Each structure stands twice: as C-alpha cells, then as structure tokens.
C-alpha cells in the first residue's frame, strides 16, 4: 500500500510547479508586508476592525505556509552577496535538517495567528461593600473583539514567525544569527504588553530577552571564531570541512561557547529557569510559538552549527551535555509532579521533552540524531496543542491554578478535554502517537552510543531517562485526574470555539499521523543525518 501511496504522492508533487527562488520569496514576503501594514494600522484614518486584522494576518501566514511548502518540495536556493566587508551572503535554502522545522513553523504559525487574542483582565479588588460575597464570575469572551493593540499583536506574531523562518532557511552563519535576533523584540513586546497582567510580565519579558541575548551573543562569539578559522561564514562549507584546520583546544573552546549559548535557548538543565516564568506570563499564541518554534532554534543550532562544524569539540562536551539533559528530564518531571500552575507545568514538561532531544544529540549516533530531530518536531506539535488547550483553559478559568476546584473537562468541555487527553497521552510517549519515537529513540541511542562516547555513563543516562519517562506518565496522569476526570460541573465554562477546534484537530491529526507513519519524517531527515554524523 505504501508503494501506491508513494506513487500518488510523487504524482501530486509533480503537479506543483517549480517556481525556484520565488517559493522562498513567497514564504517570507507576505509575513513582512503584513507585519508592516499592521504596524502602521493604528495611524490609519479609520482603524481596521478585528475581522480585517485577523483576515490579513491569517492570509499572510497561509500564503507564507504555501511558500514554505513549495520551498520544502523543490528546495530552491537563493544566494546574494549582502555584507561584502564581512563576506556575508544572503543565502537561503532548505535541506533535510530544516524542512521538518520549516513546515512545523508554518503550521504552528498559522495556528498561533488564527487564535483569538483574549486580553487578560487585571485582578481587581472587590468593591468595599461586596467583600466576602461570592460573585458569579462573568462568562469569558472567547471570540475576537476589538482589543486595543490587536494589529500590533498580530504584527509581532508574524515577525516572530518570519524570524524563525529566516533562521531555519539561513545557509550563512551570520544570517542565522540575524534571524535568531529578529525574533527577540517582537517576542518581548508580546510578553510585556499582551502577557498576563496578574504576574510580573515586564520582569518576565526582560528576563526572556536578557537570557536569550546572552545566549545568542555567546553563540555569535563562537560563530565568529569559526568564521575566522575557516575564512567563510557559509554553513555548507563549514559542514563539509568538519573542523579541519581548527586544532583541538580551539574546537573545545568554540564548542563550549556555542553550546553554552544554545543551551540557554533550548534550555538545558541549569540554564532553564527563565522558561516556566515566561510561559506562564506569555499570551497563548506567544506560548505556542515559544514552545513549538523558538526553543527549536536552540536544538537546530546544535545540529547545524556545532555537531558538524567542531566535531571534536562536541565529542568532548557530549557526556556533560547528556548528563545535563538527563538531569533536566528528571528535575523537570519532578517539578511537574508538584507544580500548581497548569501553564507552568506544561512549560516544565517542555524542558523534560527537550532533555530527550538533547540526550539524543549527545549520543553522537545516527539513531540518536534521527530521534532528536523527530523529537523536535513531535514536541513542537504536542506542546503547541497543549498550550492551545491550556491557554484557552486559563482564560476560561481566570487563572491556571490547579488547586482551585474546577468543572471536570470530560463533562464540561468535551472537545477541549479530548484534546488535552490526546496531548497528554502523546506527551507520555504512548506508541502510536508522535512523542513515542523521539523518546524511545533517544533512550535506545543512549544505551548504545557512538564508540568515542563513554558507554558506561551513557548507559546510566539511558536508565535515568527511562525513569524520567515513567515520571512523565505520572505527572500526565496527575493532570488528567485533576483537570479532566471527575463529575463536577460548576463553574461552567464554554467549550472550544471554532478556531480552537480547527487548530486542535489539525495539530492532533499531525500528531497521530507522525505517530503511525514516522517514516514520513525519518525519510526526510535520514540523508542529512549521515552527513552530520560524518560516518
């Protein structure tokens, strides 16, 4: 059957015209144009309503997604000289490493842009005469309204997607860095301006920015060191050189700087403290993008900028990196068992899942790398789904505190409940869902790592990661028990609205498809993993 499917697929692909670099332009230009238009919207004589704003930004995201799909099929290349003084080229193109992440970014981008913005209400003290009275909470507004600053909000979302696409498409180290940085200011605005006013959103936004900037500058230092040693910033040349001409001590130092910078972004265990706070504060769409796309920049950077470029340096640090990843898995899973804020809990679980990804990278085998790349995409889809659900719940409940008694989702909001069950099951790593392959692959690869890795340590890591997997089941069950099951019906909350339903169905379907047919993704990444590992 797969044979005929493949034929049908090939025929469908043939129908798509090869527009060459126009695909890349189509992937990037709509986002930029729509963002610029939206940013100036506040100054128009008649301000646009929420419908036209959303229509414009969803159209832009869809057009960009079409462009990304075309670029993923035909893999065109753009190469124009950009900064002659530095020898930097505007080099854009997709390959097996970036195609899955590009598609993920597009899908999640469309979902994030389509979600309604709910302006969170600031907690208000009860008027003097009414203290102590139980008031019925108002029914939350779920559909879009003319929220002030809606145009800016959508512009920021589009810019974040644009920056991520540029970074994933970049074939030049400096261009990758520019894309990496392009994301920062819009994300800062999203958190600081549209975040949860109940928490310290300015603090969260600044913390996000500081941590990311320190990380990206460390990364830049490493990149510049490699650029000086090799005399070019072309990533494909770097990958083909495989660290030739860089002596071992320099490789170790460069890898340390690069990994430290990227580990702040991923985040890897002792550097993870910013993530739960930012996630708890960010608006739903911001959380979705942060978890599903921005964190991937870190792991993608490790695969693209560290592993093939300074292989000896990476091999030197790999045992430590694997250890930190496992520590992160255990620590985050334990935190999930006691965390009271549902959104923060999902953020902790992101740290655990990315721990599996980093562990897979650290093993240095092709299996590990494949598992890591798969886990990357799977986590992107699962965390996007979970944050859509949890963000919606937080808005409906008024907070995300698990200690407050709520209506059971199974009874009150069946479709949100079903999505939560699916997401949690995928997050547990149940077979048949996307989360399974990444985690099992990472544990397997850690059990039999590459020859130059200390086998004993990695065996221990495999065992500990498996324990972490069991903890994942435990905290997922805890969430489902506290939120989903039960028969309490009060206070009533409305079920998913149309955009949420569509978003959840799309993400859920992708999770199922990847879980059942992992080949779809593995065949895309297989050819490049061999090149990255280099054996």
């Amino acid at each position, binding site marked *: 059957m797969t044979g005929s499917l493949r034929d049908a697929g090939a025929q469908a692909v043939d129908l798509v015209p090869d527009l060459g670099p126009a695909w890349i332009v189509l992937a990037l230009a709509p986002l930029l144009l729509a963002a610029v238009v939206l940013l100036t919207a*506040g100054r128009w004589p008649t301000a646009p309503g929420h419908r036209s704003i959303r229509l414009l930004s969803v159209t832009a995201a869809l057009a960009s997604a079409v462009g990304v799909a075309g670029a993923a099929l035909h893999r065109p290349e753009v190469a124009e000289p950009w900064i002659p003084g530095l020898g930097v080229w505007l080099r854009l193109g997709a390959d097996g490493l970036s195609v899955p992440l590009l598609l993920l970014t597009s899908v999640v981008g469309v979902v994030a842009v389509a979600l309604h913005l709910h302006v969170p209400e600031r907690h208000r003290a009860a008027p003097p005469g009414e203290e102590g009275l139980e008031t019925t909470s108002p029914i939350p507004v779920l559909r879009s309204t*003319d929220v002030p600053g809606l145009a800016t909000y959508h512009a920021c979302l589009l810019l974040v997607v644009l920056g991520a696409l540029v970074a994933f498409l970049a074939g030049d180290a400096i261009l990758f860095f520019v894309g990496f940085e392009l994301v920062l200011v819009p994300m800062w605005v999203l958190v600081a301006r549209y975040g949860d006013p109940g928490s310290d959103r300015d603090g969260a936004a600044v913390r996000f920015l500081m941590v990311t900037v320190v990380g990206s500058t460390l990364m830049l230092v490493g*990149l510049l060191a490699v650029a000086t040693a090799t005399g070019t910033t072309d990533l494909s040349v770097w990958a083909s050189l495989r660290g030739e001409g860089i002596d071992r001590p320099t490789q170790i130092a460069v890898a340390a700087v690069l990994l430290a910078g990227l580990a702040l972004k991923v985040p890897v265990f002792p550097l993870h403290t910013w993530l739960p706070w930012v996630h708890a504060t960010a608006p739903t769409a911001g959380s979705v993008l942060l978890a599903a796309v921005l964190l991937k920049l870190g792991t993608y950077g490790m695969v693209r900028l560290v592993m093939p470029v300074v292989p000896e340096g990476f091999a030197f640090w790999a045992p430590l990196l694997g250890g930190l990843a496992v520590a992160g898995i255990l620590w985050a899973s334990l935190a999930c068992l006691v965390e009271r804020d549902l959104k923060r809990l999902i953020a902790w679980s992101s740290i655990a899942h990315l721990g599996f990804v980093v562990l897979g990278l650290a093993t240095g085998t092709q299996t590990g790398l494949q598992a890591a790349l798969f886990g990357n995409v799977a986590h992107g889809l699962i965390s996007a789904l979970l944050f859509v659900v949890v963000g919606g719940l937080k808005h409906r409940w008024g907070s995300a505190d698990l200690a407050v008694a709520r209506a059971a989702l199974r009874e009150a909001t069946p479709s949100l409940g079903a999505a939560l069950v699916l997401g949690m099951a995928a997050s547990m790593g149940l077979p048949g869902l996307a989360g399974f392959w990444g985690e099992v692959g990472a544990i397997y690869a850690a059990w039999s790592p590459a020859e130059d890795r200390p086998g004993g340590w990695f065996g221990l890591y495999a065992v500990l990661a498996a324990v972490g997997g069991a903890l994942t089941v435990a905290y997922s069950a805890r969430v489902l028990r506290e939120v989903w099951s039960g028969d309490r019906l009060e206070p009533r909350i409305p079920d998913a609205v149309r955009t949420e339903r569509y978003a959840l169905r799309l993400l859920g379907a992708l999770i199922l498809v990847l879980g059942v047919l992992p080949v779809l993704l593995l065949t895309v990444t297989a050819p490049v993993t061999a090149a990255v590992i280099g054996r």
Partner: protein
Amino acid sequence: MTLQLNLVATLPVLAPLLAAVLVLLLDAAVPGHRWPHLLVAGAGLAAGAAGAVPGLLQTTGDARAAFCLPSGECLYAADRLTSTLQLAGLLAAGVVLVLAWRDWSAPSATGRAAVVAALVLGATGGVVAVPAAQDLGSLLVALELATLPTVGLVVLTDDAWSGERRARAVEGATALLMTSLVSFGLVALGAALWVAATGTALLELPTSRDPALLLLASVFVLAGLAFKLSAVPFHAWTPVTYTAASLPVTAYLSTVSKVAALGAVVVLVRALGAVDGTTLLALALLAALSMTVGNLVALVQTDTVRLLAWSTVAQAGWVLLPLASLSSRAVHAAGSYLVVYVLGTLLAFTVVVAVADAHGAGASRSGSALAGTSLEAHRGLLRSHPLLALPLALALLTLAGLPPAVVGLVAKVVALRPVAGDGTWWLAVVAAVNVALGIAVYLRWLSRLLAQAPPVPSSLRQTAPARAASVGAGRAPDETDEPGESGEPGESGEPGEDLRAGAPEGPPERGPRTPVRVWALVAVLTLLVVVWSIAPVGVV
C-alpha cells in the same frame, strides 16, 4: 630641508579652520548678523566633507599625504579609514550645527553666533586632523585643538538659564578643562617616552631599541586618550559635563569628540601593530571595564542625557574592544563601529532635543515639574509623537544592536570578530554579557516609549456606563504601567472607537511644533539607518 606641501590633501582640515577665521572676520565686518556666519560655517564643513570624499575612493594601502619630508615620511596621511572618520566627524559637526540653530535665533544669543560657530569649526578642524596625524607633534596639537574649544562651548551658557544651571555649566566646563589638561600631560609624557624609546617623533614604523619603554610610552598615551574617549576608569568627567552643557554641545561631545579620541587611538594602534609581539592588555581591560561600568550605571539613570552619557562610556568600551587585538582588521572594525555609534547617538540626541523643546514649553504651561530631558517625559511618545518615537526607537535599537536595526547588529558582529578570532575568550564573554546589559539599558527607554501616556485625563474621562460592558471593564482607572493603550474601556456599541482610545491620551498640545530643520535631520538620519540596515555596505 624642503617640506613638500600638498595642501589639497589637507582640505578636510583646512576648510573648517579657514571657515572659523572667516567667521570671526565676518563678525567684525558685519556685526549683529547671524545668517552669513551660519552660511560660512556650513560651507566650511561641507567643503571639508567634499575634500574627504576622494579619500574614500582610494584603494587599500593608498593614502593622501601632505607635509612630506625629503626622507619620504609624511606628517599627514589620510587613507580610507582616516577619510571615513574625517567624513563622519565633519558631517556629525554639521548635524550639531543644525541642532544648535535655536541658540542662534534666540534673542539672548545675538552676537554669540560668531563665537559659537568659530569654536565648533575650530574643534572640528582638530578632530579631523587627529586621525591623519603621523607624528607625535601633530597628534598632540590636533588633540588639543579638538578639545579646548569644546570647553568654551560648554561654558557659553544661555542667558535664560537659572543661576544654578549656569553655575553647573561652569562646573562642567571646569571638569572638562581639568580632564583635558591631565590627559594632555599624560599624552605628552607618553610622547616623551616614545621619543626616548624610538629616537624619533614619527609614528610610522617605530624601530624600538627598548620594547619595554615603548610599551610604557604607549600605555601613557593610551591613558591620556582614554580620558577623551571617556573609558573607565578615566570617565568621571563625562556625566558631569554632559548634563551641564546645552544639548547640542553634549551631542557634539558625545559624537564628534569621540571621533578625535578614537582617531588618536587608531593612530597609536597602527604604529604599535607594526611592532611584532606587542599586545596591549591595557586596551582589553579598558574595553571590558568601560562597557561593564557604563552599562551598569546607565541602567539606573532617570534622565535621557545622563543615560546617553553613560551609554557613551559603555560604547567607548565597544569601540576599544576590537583594538585589543592590534591588527589592521581590528582598526577598521573599530572605525566601523564608531561610525555606527555616531549615527545612532546623533539620531537619539536629535530626538531628545526635539522632545525637550516640545516638552519644555508644554511643561511650563501645565506646571509639570518634569524636565524635558527626563526619561518620564518620553512616556507614551509612540502615541503622541509617532514620527519622533519611531526614529528614536530605531536609534536605540541600533545602539543596542538588535534587529530591525540590522546595522547595529552588524556593528556588534564586526567589533566582536577580532576578539573571537584571536580566542581572547574572557573578553568575548564579558562582551556577550554586556550585549545583554546594554539591551536592558536601551529597553528601559524603549519601554517608556511604548508605554501609555501619562493618565491625567483618563481618570476624569472615566464614565460609569462605559465601565460595565466591554472587555476592558475590569481595569482600574489609575493603571499607569499598562503598556497597552486601553486605559479606558471603549464605549460599548462602538467597537471601532476603542482601538484609538489611547491616542488622545497624549497631551493635546505639547508646546510649539517641532521645527522643520529637526524633522529634516531626523528624516535624513533615519533614512541612513534604514538604508544601511538593508544593505550594510562599507562596513569592514
């Protein structure tokens, strides 16, 4: 002994100096006028800039030389980098001249126009001469020519200022004078040691008989120059003088004067780079200290000028950073960074001047105690004056090195590259942390721009029926830290209205309209940043 003059090559220096003399003569001939002086000053700067342009077109290795000795050495040589610095200095001086226009037109300043123009031109002539100096004598003279007139500029106060304010100006000028004297002493001592070490006052290819002595000499010279560049620990005068002087003069000090200081450091580093095996740990230390201290102190400032002053200290560290690796590429990197820094700072200062003008008049009317330059005066600027706020945001992002101001980012890359290439890891890590610190500094300002305007009218306008219906109903009327502009709930039933609800919050009238010349400056500088961000040509 015949000296081969080549006066055409020295046009960038000669033109402003001649213009200065001409302005003074003109003032004696037709006293009481302002326009002729301005025109002559502008023409002098323009001629100087035009004279520097051919220098830009040279290929690397070439130099436009003048005052050549029979032995072949020249006392003045301008290669591409030097010409770039000269052009930047001259154009920046032109911008400052335009910014100071108001001082000309004020009735109190009648008769002072000639003095101010002559001082600016004289100092600029010195600034332009510094990077081209090829011997210690010219360097010393040019440095002092660049510095001493600025003392006069600082101390020339406005009659409209209060007595306390004028006293502060004198204090600032004294600080600047003392600093320049001390630094002159240090540089002179260094020069003496240099001559003792090499046996010549020429800077070209020093053949040292005593490397240790040469190093000592360069450390002394460097210390003297660090005063001018306001690098830590020689920075103490900077905040004092900056806040004491009038705004255009401060802009001059923080941009044009820095070109001179960096030019001198470049001259020194080039001379030292020719000597094998010397490294200047002192430069690395200066860079690391300057950026760290500058950023940390800037983080707590509440006044834009003070913030810019400390940001100058921090940016001085960034300018010095690439020089820690004494190479030709490093020298170019420092030059590129300086040009970008001058561009960003000038744009920021232009907007600060415009806001201070607008606010000053408005504040006196509404009785507000806020100074026009305070950070709070910029709150909600994006709503009230979007055409000023956006360029300012761009300038701040340039200084912070964040996209969409790609040129700032490229400058950071350029400055970091020699350090990363050398493998001076400790310095690279300090720089990385300072990028974050710097962003925190400029974001504090930026978030003020994005924030909601002062909510004075909103508490009055809050009406009971509007409270009940819409999403924003839960908001307290006194929320001031709300970056979103919805302080007040929109009228129910008119959803189109509340998008713009925040806009009228800005004070309806904020003093006089911003004059056309400031708009033109803002437009030109913004355009430069934008164009350079799209195509960062010329950055090496």
